[in-house]
């Protein structure tokens, strides 16, 4: 197991900046959803750290649910762009105010697809909160209502975001120097 310092390119957002921004987002969401019956939906697994911290800054009562998604076919996306639901919501979102929490948006394909799918269930409102927005990578327009930070088109890790399933626990967001990073043997191809 490689020490992350060996392939860390730079820390893009440090721990303090993340915590401060998460608190601000929590306050803003609490104001915006005052008096509503909010359902917070965490997209596993990357969104878990952000969701757990953000929820603690929400001062309004809310429900929390999780979804787990995967793609069809080989590689990141199938040609159809369809997304497979591994774990669906336990909650019926009809007529509910739903806030989807994501760690990062890049092409926007997955997010656009999930939003489309959730809209068929007729929520009262459906908004999106992402910690990181990699705008340069956008291929599909998606409306993101709450953004933590804009990040450049670099491979990032930490604060819930993994590289080959590791390093999610780091309290900051950093970029990877791909020339120095070695994939673990069990990660395989892809």
């Amino acid at each position, binding site marked *: *197991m490689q020490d992350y310092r060996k392939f860390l390119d730079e820390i893009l957002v440090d721990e303090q900046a993340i915590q401060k921004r998460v608190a601000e987002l929590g306050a803003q969401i609490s104001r915006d959803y005052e008096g509503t019956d909010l359902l917070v939906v965490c997209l596993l697994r990357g969104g878990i750290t952000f969701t757990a911290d953000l929820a603690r800054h929400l001062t309004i009562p809310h429900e929390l649910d999780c979804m*787990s998604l995967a793609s069809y076919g080989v590689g990141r996306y199938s040609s159809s762009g369809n997304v497979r639901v591994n774990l669906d919501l336990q909650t019926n979102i009809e007529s509910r105010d739903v806030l989807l929490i994501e760690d990062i948006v890049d092409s926007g394909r997955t997010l656009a697809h999930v939003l489309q799918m959730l809209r068929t269930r007729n929520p009262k409102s459906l908004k999106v909160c992402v910690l990181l927005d990699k705008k340069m990578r956008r291929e599909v327009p998606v409306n993101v209502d709450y953004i933590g930070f804009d990040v450049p088109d670099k491979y990032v890790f930490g604060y819930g975001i993994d590289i080959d399933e590791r390093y999610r626990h780091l309290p900051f967001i950093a970029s990877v120097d791909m020339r120095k990073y070695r994939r673990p043997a069990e990660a395989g191809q892809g």
Partner: protein
Amino acid sequence: MRDYKEFMSEILIDEGTLQKRVADLGAEISRDYQGKNPVLICILRGGMVFLVDLMRHITVPHQMDFMAIASYGLGARASAGNVRLTLDLQTDIHGRDVLLVEDIVDSGNTLAYVLEFLQTRQPRSLKVCALLDKEERREIAVPIHYRGFVIPDKYVFGYGLDLDEYYRNLPFVAIVDLEKYQPPLS
């Protein structure tokens, strides 16, 4: 939706005490798993908050994965008997050091079932870390290797534990006054 202060009987474990204990557990786990690469498994959704905080105190390389389970039959609070897997692990745990992270152990029935199930996949080791242990309620013996707090047989909420799906976000663990609490209409 009501403010929790209307039905909270008392704060059982405050935020400072929780965070300190989670840090201690993280340090202990880091020592015990030195040189290993454990997989931390969280059973959704109660264990999420504990897992996220615990992970940040674990200094050895590790992975995390999730399972979601549901009970067969009716009654949300009945937890005896077999459980149904609604989300399986993404990771193959064969030959791996597995640490199951749980918010609370009550009767032990669900935990016993999950451990038995995970054991069939032949992990190298399988241990349990539970934040709260309601020891008095135990119906079946289950091993708990890392334990946050032993708590009395009271209905608790906060720090990942819900009351009818709400209040998981509170940074402390509190006891409900069931005479004052009314479940939400849905």
